[in-house]
């Protein structure tokens, strides 16, 4: 690794030894980063490498625990987003941060609108300057247009104009092409070239290798919150970058038991959706853990939600144990024996305010009632049986689920679904955001379920987890199945190549 100079000559912004910890997670572990005027630096890393955290540190949303931020060699602090903006650091967010009911000009200047002598907002100056900024990025949008009347590409331009309205020296683009069409991406590249020509330093965060090689001048790789390397794009190959992203081999122990794979229980053929996924075809066997890997936004959760009846595929068929099934609602999915443990437990899993046992029995009430009346004793028995199997730590099953830790809430949600006695269980990021101990319990239990003949789909963005737990792995990229790996082909390199879209032959 190169020595760590205090600040590179000519760097407009440098980070040195940045550490940021959150309860239970060391999100950034002494990372460094240098951005140079007139150059695009690509920040590359797997899910959870710390890319989003570094953006938040740079824009004053998070304060680093340790380390220095240097602007033109001078140490500075960004206690607020305004302070970062004043120092000329600005981030282009997705269009969701904009206000639909306001005009283009109001959106661009929200929070720092030009004022008149009387302290009121100077609308005329705001419009004139908005038009200037828009012209600067080659757009002739009328600043008086309401945002809701614009298409997504124009909204994106407004977001960019807003970022530039603070006289930016450093522009951060976090996955800027994720929501854009090919034509819009080409326009974005032109814009990046313009910004480069104006001498702005650009931090470009992307998963897509083709665009990194197309647009970036320099690269920096993070892995698990740590700095791995940096350099000029010309001196590096795709293979090198993948190697740096993957790093060491799987070093965690996973309680994967040898699987007795049975007959197919679920066959999905040609699932299509106009915007989320296309031509999804796969088979799931009894006793199997099928891993779904991909980068965030690859469409994995959307496919799972279609299987569970939350949304419907536009095309395609699904067979469960040989019978063609059309699943239009979650109730039908549960009846067909498919259950889904969602990724966002807080929003989609736990019903806070209800006690643990009622959370467990919610989908099984038909079984615990007689003649239309619930039987609390049976509910308790059912809840006790399944929460014990998951080794739930709770004072009482009568306790509000909201008072449990994240890991224990996850166990309750899993217990809830197991109590319906499903044939197929889909676990979406089952260990995301839970403590190590609960993680091991969930993994252990997953193995046990498969051993008992349940078919398990595990959606995971963590390579060690997906490699450690799966019998077979499907990788999705941009809504399509990018590869299927089993046995010795299940390597970190193969997964990342498929996920970012590098052909095998390029290696």
């Amino acid at each position: 690794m190169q020595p760590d100079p205090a600040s590179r000559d000519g760097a407009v912004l440098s980070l040195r030894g940045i550490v940021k910890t959150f309860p239970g997670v060391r999100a950034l572990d002494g990372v460094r980063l240098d951005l140079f005027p007139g150059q695009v630096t690509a920040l590359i890393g797997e899910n959870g490498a710390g890319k989003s955290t570094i953006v938040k540190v740079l824009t004053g949303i998070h304060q680093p625990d340790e380390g220095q931020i240097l602007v033109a060699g001078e140490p500075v602090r960004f206690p607020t987003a305004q302070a970062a903006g004043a120092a000329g650091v600005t981030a282009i967010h997705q269009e969701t941060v904009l206000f639909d009911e306001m005009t283009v000009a109001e959106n661009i200047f929200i929070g720092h609108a030009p004022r008149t002598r009387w302290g009121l907002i100077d609308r005329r100056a705001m419009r004139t300057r908005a038009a200037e900024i828009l012209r600067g990025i080659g757009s002739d949008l009328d600043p008086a247009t309401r945002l809701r009347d614009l298409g997504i590409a124009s909204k994106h331009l407004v977001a960019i104009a807003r970022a530039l309205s603070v006289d930016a020296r450093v522009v951060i683009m976090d996955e800027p092409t994720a929501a854009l069409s090919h034509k819009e991406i080409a326009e974005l590249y032109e814009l990046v070239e313009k910004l480069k020509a104006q001498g702005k330093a650009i931090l470009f965060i992307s998963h897509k290798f083709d665009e990194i090689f197309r647009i970036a001048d320099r690269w920096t790789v993070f892995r698990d919150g740590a700095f791995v390397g940096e350099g000029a794009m010309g001196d590096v190959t795709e293979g090198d970058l993948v190697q740096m992203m993957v790093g060491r081999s799987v070093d965690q122990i996973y309680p994967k038991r040898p699987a007795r794979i049975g007959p197919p229980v679920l066959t999905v053929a040609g699932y299509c959706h106009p915007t989320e996924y296309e031509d999804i075809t796969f088979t799931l066997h009894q006793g199997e853990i099928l891993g779904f890997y991909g980068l965030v936004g690859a469409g994995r959760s959307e496919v799972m939600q279609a299987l569970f009846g939350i949304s419907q595929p536009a095309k395609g068929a699904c067979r469960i144990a040989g019978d063609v099934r059309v699943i239009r609602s979650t109730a039908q999915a549960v009846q067909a024996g498919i259950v889904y443990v969602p990724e966002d437990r807080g929003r989609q899993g736990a019903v806070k305010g209800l006690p643990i046992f009622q959370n467990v029995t919610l989908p099984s009430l038909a079984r615990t009632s007689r003649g239309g009346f619930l039987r609390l004793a049976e509910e308790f028995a059912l809840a006790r049986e399944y929460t014990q199997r998951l080794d739930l730590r709770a004072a009482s099953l009568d306790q509000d689920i909201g008072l449990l830790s994240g890991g224990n809430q996850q166990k309750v949600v899993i217990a809830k679904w197991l109590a319906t006695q499903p044939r197929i269980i889909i676990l979406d990021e089952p260990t995301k955001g839970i403590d190590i101990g609960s993680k091991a319990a969930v993994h252990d239990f997953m193995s046990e379920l498969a051993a008992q003949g349940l078919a398990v789909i595990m959606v995971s963005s963590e390579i060690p987890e997906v490699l450690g737990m799966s019998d077979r792995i499907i990788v999705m990229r941009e809504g399509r199945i990018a590869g299927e790996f089993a046995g010795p082909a299940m390597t970190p390199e193969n997964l990342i190549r498929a996920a970012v879209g590098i052909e095998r032959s390029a290696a």
Partner: protein
Amino acid sequence: MSLLKSREVVLGGVIVLLLAAIASRFPGFVAPANLGRVFTDTSPLILLALGQMAVILTKCIDLSVAANLALCGMVAALMDGMGVPMPVILGTVVVMGAGLGAINGALVWGLGIPSIVVTLGTMTIYRGTIFLLTEGAWINAHQMSDAFKAVPRQVILGLPVMAWIAVAAIAGVAVLMTRTALGRAFYAVGGNPHAAVYTGISVGRTQFAAFVLAGALAGLTGYLWVARYAVAYVDIAGGFELDVVAACVIGGIAIAGGAGTVAGAVMGALFLGIIKNALPVVGISPFWQMAISGAAILAAIAFNARRRDPGRIILKRAEVRA
């Protein structure tokens, strides 16, 4: 859960203190016969609060209950004028009230219009319908049959039928809330609509059911009201919907949905009923009643706000990982 229980205990304590304070100067107020009268007088409020509770649990609100009550009451009086037998009238008001509730529910479920807007509209429509039926005319005591007026006042085991109906409704709704899948669904839908969907519970259908229940209770109460006061006109129970919502809020039914008990709703209604009946006795202007119930609402909300949702920690953690 213990906090939820303690909320009802606190309200019960407040009611006991209130009664004790009144009794210290007017012992007659707490005589069993008078308490029975207060309970009977509060029965309509209790009946509507039970229905409103179901609606509020599902994150909705029904402002049309008083108009529903008035319309069903008027229809009952008109039917009586035509000589329709009592059992048919009773059946009709319940079904009709449920139907009016179903209109609310269908608009909320099918069109996804916020319930406050839907019921603000139907509230006016239902009132307007009474005017269309009667052209604003009143139906007075002498135009009603004796049988029609007798039912709610008939005394059984020391209490009028109206009070017994309230008791039966309390028991029925309590069983519905704690012992049936539908009751559980009310709590789940209000507590976390997203999770309810992922659990296979239809949010819209559950809200629809809550509106039908509220409507049916309002329809039944419509008959009881008109028969007890022996008068029916366009504006009966005008503004009563706000008393109903107030009873629920005072009773600790979380306005954001998902939390609250039958005991709370009933006690909230009784609290208002006691104040309304006690003020004239104590010699305080009834206008103070509004100020007192307003203060009680604010106090109840402030009390409930102290225990709100420790669950955001998880979201923050998820954000950290992202």
